[in-house]
């Protein structure tokens, strides 16, 4: 199910694949019911930025952005090297582990961090 060609595939393609996988997972969809958020992926070494828009219990959109208001409401901000983000969204690296390893930083409310942890268990651990 996961994109195993991650090393040769860019973050953009990996995220498209992730969107499909997310929306195919009934548990992930249940978990984000009522949790409408913009998740900003911020590749700190390349400057690339992507926004994942979670709305109406689905991952509605993945888009590359030039800039994004980091103080926007309902924003979850995830920062790390592009290779790390690619590893994560291709399924090779559980984001909960990446956080413990200091490979990514997350800027969000505590409530949103719990939601991300739950999503990590559903998508990365249980598949």
């Amino acid at each position, binding site marked *: 199910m996961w994109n195993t060609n991650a090393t040769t595939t860019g973050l953009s393609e990996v995220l498209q694949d992730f969107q499909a996988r997310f929306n195919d997972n009934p*548990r992930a969809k249940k978990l984000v*019911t009522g949790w409408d958020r913009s998740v900003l992926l911020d590749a700190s070494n390349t400057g690339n930025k992507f926004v994942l828009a979670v709305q109406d219990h689905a991952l509605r959109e993945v888009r590359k952005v030039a800039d994004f208001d980091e103080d926007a409401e309902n924003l979850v901000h995830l920062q790390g090297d592009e290779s790390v983000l690619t590893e994560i969204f291709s399924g090779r690296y559980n984001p909960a582990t990446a956080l413990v390893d200091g490979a990514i930083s997350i800027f969000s409310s505590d409530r949103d961090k*719990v*939601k991300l*942890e*739950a999503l990590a*268990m559903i998508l990365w651990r249980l598949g």
Partner: protein
Amino acid sequence: MGSFLNLDGLALNAEQGKWKRRAEGVAREILRAHAARVDQDASFPRESIRALGEAGILGMGLPKEWGGGGQNIFTSIIVTEQLAKACAATAMCFHMHQSTLPLLIATATPEQVETFLKPVAMGKALGAYAMSEPGSGNRIWHMDSHAEREGDEYVIDSYKSFCTSAGSADFYLLPVRSGPGLKPNDLSLFFVPGDTPNIKPVGVWDGMGLRGNGSRPIHFDRCRVHKKYMMGAEKTGLSFMMAYSLPIYLCGMAACYVGIAQAAYEAAVDHVKKRVHTDTNKSLAHVETVQRLIAEMRVSIDVVRSTVLRISQMADNAVVLFNEFKSTDLLDEVMRDNPDDPFFIEVATLKPAACEMAIEVTSKAMQVCGGAAYKRGHIVERAYRDGRAGSVMGPSDDTTKIVIGTQILGLPQPWV
């Protein structure tokens, strides 16, 4: 070293400190005063349990809105350790009680809170957790007994082989199969009030240690309880036990055995400083072998204690995550699909680590105290007997190690 800079990384916040001091006070003034008699007579520590209720300690794990103390697992662990240092039997009764609480919080409906959980929060009720059955012994995820629905009631027929506070508890949390034809781990959970007819404690508890526990068998002999006493939905019991009981049960069990080991260690340090041989005119503290054994005890206790504190903080975080799954109605399926989550393994390691440490430390304490500690009534003698129970309590250390090894090696867990 002062804790101003929090150099040990584990400084308590003001509220946790308040609970710790409160527990130390009750332990010093009440538990310690009764501990020797409770042990000698194998009598239930009624006065000590009453004191825990009056100090708010019995209700500390329940929400403040219910009248409880609103404390988490970490604070409960700090308190348990203090109690176990003074009277291990009381600490174990308290511990089995506190192990019921997170699950009650997770499953209670507003009606259940009003009708029977508020008195628990206010420290007016002691709970017992009746899991072990004769058929499965220490493998406490497997139940043979069951409940059957009859109209608005359930008829529970369940024989539990050990139950701390049996006959003295104000309520029992009871996992049984949800029906006669169902699988051993399709469990339902009942809050059974202690005055329900046909609850029959069996015989007397005459243990080697933890003699005040009243851990005798108990028979729920076709007990009838109204359906409102079922906690959570039918068949989801094992998932809720894994998520909400197992973490506090394993952390608190470890805290009990850290407390027992500390009591033995402190008594040993005191003894070897005071015991002077006339031929050398020196205390035992001057004997190198004694110094080494004292140091070994201290190292063993410190290593386990800091691990217990770290993992109990982790357990509090895990509860937040489990609440997230509960609130989205995913808990049962996530727990069933995830029996070997690394968190469960981490928390499971506490059991053999603490229980084996307690056996080692109490044994070394007896060694350095010599014949004095071998006599009935010495603190080290009592700790030696109390400290032996943990390793056989369910899941036995041996079973726990098999569970851990199975997970590491990627094999299925025995309850799946």
